[in-house]
């Protein structure tokens, strides 16, 4: 018999809020989390803004704990603690508890800071915590340690699809009976001059320095690139019978996932979106859903000229005329792009959307790109229908990774 997987806890630290409730409130209100950077190094770059977390980890954890953790690990602990508490701090056999938390880039700020230490003070000046802080599996490992998780601690890495891939990996761990509860999601902390210079060199970032809060504008005719964000999102996934037996609050069901790869280009999207279409079809089949069941979709839509249209075209091809009944939200218009954290916070948003029956808005569309032929939720949140409904979360990463997650009300 198939083991069903439900969501029983949520946690987040994002550019919009210190936790899930404050983030969701700002998201529904259509607020932007994008601001000018205050660091001097911004003047070295063509981009002077980013979406930093709303609340610094220093306000959410102890100083001594912080100094041994990379910023990405701090985000993971903050969001996991909220999610674990939200799930009722379940009393679970530790050998049936797992952690799957992704990051796209890992502890890049630690790596660069310690390189500065090395150059300045020599090898003796490099912190003994450097390696545990820079390793991409560090966020998952630290959460696993804190919760004493022993069913397995994992970190899939697939650039901007990493967070969604982690949640999909966790789904399979529970389905295949490796675990009963998984702390899953993704984090990213890469707002630093080097990664930003790298993205800028690719011409991937918006350079709208005169209006940062208007810079992330998926589907707008004049979009000019994504806005780098930071933070993370966590979902507590739990086997359905296990959740019922302990009387847990159940948000919704994670019903399936679809994975594919483009085989096209290291960074550019396949303009035909064939890989995205296959991932959507696989997700629907894996979830045992029909295209008619889908009422909401949180798009990857990062605000790059090529990516947004390629995705929208793929959605229409994969869902046919049923895409006209889908409320499509591009929440990166408010949060910026959290890279390895994106698929995770957007999964948190889908879970909230199903719970509240409300699709978040997409802000900053002044002139909808005529090439975008999906029903975008513009400016104001939109009510979702009553009854049993389902929603999809698209995530794609440099390298041609495609991950689609399917959630449904119980």
């Amino acid at each position, binding site marked *: 018999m198939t083991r069903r997987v439900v969501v029983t806890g949520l946690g987040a630290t994002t550019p919009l809020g210190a936790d899930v409730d404050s983030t969701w409130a700002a998201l529904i209100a259509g607020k932007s989390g994008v601001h000018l950077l205050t660091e001097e190094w911004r003047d070295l770059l063509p981009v002077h803004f980013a979406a930093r977390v709303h609340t610094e980890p220093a306000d959410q954890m102890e100083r*001594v*704990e912080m100094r*041994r953790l990379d910023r990405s690990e701090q985000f993971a602990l903050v969001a996991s603690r909220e999610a674990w508490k939200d799930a009722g701090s379940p009393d679970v056999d530790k050998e049936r508890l797992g952690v799957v938390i992704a990051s796209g880039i890992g502890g890049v700020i630690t790596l660069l800071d310690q390189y500065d230490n090395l150059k300045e003070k020599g090898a*003796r000046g490099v*912190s*003994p*915590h450097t390696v545990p802080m820079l390793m991409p599996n560090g966020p998952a490992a630290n959460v696993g340690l804190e919760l004493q998780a022993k069913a397995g601690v994992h970190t899939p890495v697939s650039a901007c699809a990493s967070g969604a891939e982690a949640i999909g990996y966790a789904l399979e761990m529970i389905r295949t009976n490796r675990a009963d509860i998984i702390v899953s999601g993704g984090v990213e902390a890469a707002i630093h001059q080097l990664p930003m210079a790298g993205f800028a060199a690719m011409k991937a970032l918006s350079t709208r320095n005169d209006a940062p809060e208007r810079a992330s504008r998926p589907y707008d005719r004049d979009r000019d690139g994504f806005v780098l964000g930071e933070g993370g999102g966590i979902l507590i996934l739990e086997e359905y019978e296990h959740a019922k037996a302990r009387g847990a609050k159940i948000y919704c069901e994670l019903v399936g996932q679809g994975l594919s790869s483009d085989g096209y280009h290291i960074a550019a999207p396949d303009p035909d979106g064939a890989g995205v279409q296959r991932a959507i079809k696989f997700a629907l089949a894996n979830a045992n859903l029909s295209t008619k069941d889908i009422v909401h979709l949180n798009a990857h839509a990062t605000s790059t000229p090529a990516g947004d249209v390629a995705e929208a075209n793929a959605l229409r091809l994969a869902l046919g005329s049923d895409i006209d009944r889908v409320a499509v939200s591009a929440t990166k218009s408010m949060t910026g792009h959290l890279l390895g954290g994106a698929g995770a916070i957007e999964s948190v948003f889908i879970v909230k959307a199903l719970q509240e029956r409300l699709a978040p808005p997409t802000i900053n569309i002044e002139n909808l790109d005529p090439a975008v032929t999906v029903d975008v939720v513009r400016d104001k949140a939109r009510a979702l229908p009553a009854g049993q409904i389902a929603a999809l979360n698209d995530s794609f990463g440099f390298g041609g990774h495609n991950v689609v997650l399917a959630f449904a009300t119980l």
Partner: protein
Amino acid sequence: MALSPADVLAGLKEIVEEVAGVSASTIELDKNFTDDLEVDSLSMVEVVVAAEERFGVKIPDEAVTDLVTVGDAVNFIVNAAK
């Protein structure tokens, strides 16, 4: 330059408090770094590097394994500074 045991203890208290978050008032000569003060092997490296900088001494890696208690460290540093 000669250092007094009391000065070294006071300095070590500040370092251990900074590195491990242990309140300086609980750090005494007979306390075991690992068992009493939760200074793990990685944090011990931080304590040693900070102590070297602060007291202007060299604490070789092979000596660190013998520094079990705060008193061991105070004695080592006082002797090394003579």
